[in-house]
């Protein structure tokens, strides 16, 4: 049984110099057999295990992770959460997640620092203006809060933006989703890990999957660096490495893995109290609670698993940032890193069963998976437990690439992919 985190537990533990806090999750050796094994201990994988245990009464579950939990893209993203997607299928999926975010800290008894500080998307040319207005209308029809702002309203919402008509790509307007915002990415992984562990889920770190054993068209288990583990159901949530896992069963996925970069500046006093994204010039920026500017750059245009990314991509992003926010011209960048994102041809995820019985994939989140973490876990757990998709992820099946019924969010989402 996990002790409850509260103001009282904080005071109590202060008396023992915070040296006697209970372990947040165990460090078990793998059992011989599990009912379900989740491959990948990021936010999505841990959330899947959590909801399998919580909503589907399963407890014999393992999450295997080759590194440490939350060490992949969960710890590398720019923590932006929003649901202002154009198409109905995407709006349903991402707003489902956003609704869970709104009460997630209470549910997990873990402060994920969800902050609904709003996300503003800028328009820089006439087509942007039309697209953003269209998306605003589509959002409102789907019950998602969205408003269109003109240039003065953009300036009023974020006074440091350069709205001069003389810059290369002037700000012609923007959209605002007030329910959107940010969360503490590490806390999401840790909160779900603690919650899942409390319900008996084994989180096995430093355990790399080396192969998948199957008999005909059904799953028998996985070969790992900690030996063979028997199971009949596998949920793969391996992000950039999904194709690597899929190749173990000779399955090809419609994915390309590319480095996506982000960077943070030195910490400064509060200057930007929202999240601002720009599709056309590809620059997005927010400020962390520590005071660092958190800046997201683009992906490299070639397949790579190097987790670093190219300098010219960062340079392009920073040029755009400086044109939009001249006030940052003397800021020093503190850290830069890359994560490997798995991008689908239609820039929408796959949450689906496969033709192999007992093998499920949750992948293709590309450049925007963090925001969907709770919803993704919830729907993937439903798909695994029932061997059928939930109605919210039915459109995100792998067969859409055969039927042609794509969820084409390329450029239609609030930011370029």
């Amino acid at each position, binding site marked *: 049984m996990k002790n409850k985190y509260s103001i009282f537990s904080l005071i109590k533990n202060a008396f023992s110099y915070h040296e006697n806090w209970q372990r947040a999750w165990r460090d078990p050796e793998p059992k011989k057999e599990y009912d379900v094994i989740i491959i990948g201990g990021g936010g999505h994988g841990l959330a899947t295990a959590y909801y399998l245990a919580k909503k589907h009464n399963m407890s014999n579950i393992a999450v295997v992770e080759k590194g440490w939990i939350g060490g992949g893209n969960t710890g590398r993203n720019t923590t932006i959460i929003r649901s202002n997607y154009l198409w109905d299928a995407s709006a349903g999926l991402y707003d489902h997640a956003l609704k869970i975010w709104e009460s997630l800290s209470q549910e997990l008894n873990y402060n994920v620092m969800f902050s609904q500080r709003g996300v503003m998307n800028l328009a820089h040319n006439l087509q942007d203006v039309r697209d953003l207005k269209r998306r605003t209308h589509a959002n409102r029809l789907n019950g998602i809060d969205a408003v269109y702002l003109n240039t003065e309203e953009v300036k009023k919402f974020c006074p440091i933006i350069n709205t001069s008509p003389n810059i290369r790509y002037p700000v012609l307007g923007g959209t605002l989703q007030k329910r959107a915002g940010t969360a503490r990415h590490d806390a999401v992984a840790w909160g779900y890990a603690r919650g899942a562990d409390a319900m008996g889920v084994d989180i096995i770190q430093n355990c790399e999957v080396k192969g998948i054993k199957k008999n005909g068209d059904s799953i028998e288990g996985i070969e790992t660096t900690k030996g063979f583990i028997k199971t009949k159901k596998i949920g793969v949530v391996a992000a950039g490495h999904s194709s690597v896992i899929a190749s173990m069963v000779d399955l090809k996925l419609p*994915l390309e*893995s590319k480095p996506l970069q982000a960077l943070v500046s030195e910490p400064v006093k509060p200057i930007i109290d929202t999240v601002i994204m720009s599709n056309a010039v590809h620059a997005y920026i927010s400020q962390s609670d520590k005071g660092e500017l958190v800046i997201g750059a683009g992906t490299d245009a*070639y397949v*790579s*698993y190097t987790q670093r990314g190219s*300098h*010219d991509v960062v340079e392009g992003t920073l040029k755009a940032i400086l044109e939009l926010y001249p006030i940052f011209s003397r800021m020093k960048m503190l850290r830069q890193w890359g994560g490997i994102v798995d991008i689908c041809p239609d820039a929408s995820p796959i949450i689906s069963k496969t033709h192999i019985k007992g093998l499920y994939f949750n992948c293709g989140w590309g450049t925007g998976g963090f925001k969907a973490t709770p919803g993704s876990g919830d729907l993937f757990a439903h798909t695994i437990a029932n061997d059928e998709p939930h109605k919210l992820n039915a459109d995100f099946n792998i067969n859409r690439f055969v039927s042609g019924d794509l969820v084409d969010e390329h450029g239609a989402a609030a930011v370029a992919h």
Partner: protein
Amino acid sequence: MFLINCPYCGERDQSEFTAGGEAHIVRPKQPTELSDDQWAEFLFMRKNIKGVQFERWNHAHGCRKWFNIVRDTSNDKIHAIYKMGDKPPIK
């Protein structure tokens, strides 16, 4: 970020080039005969290899010619470069 030795122009920065994805995917000879599954395979399914991969690249900001590269995607090291139509120099 790395250097690419264009077979026509010599060594240039990678940012001058455009990646064209997996190489040696042959366009179906009789497209009308293809099933939906075969179309999906041709259009969308990719090996997306972590390791040595065969790729098409275009020197977009140079000679604008297409050619092939054998590259290790786990460390971005290039093993071979060969012209379109040539047989891959390594397996």
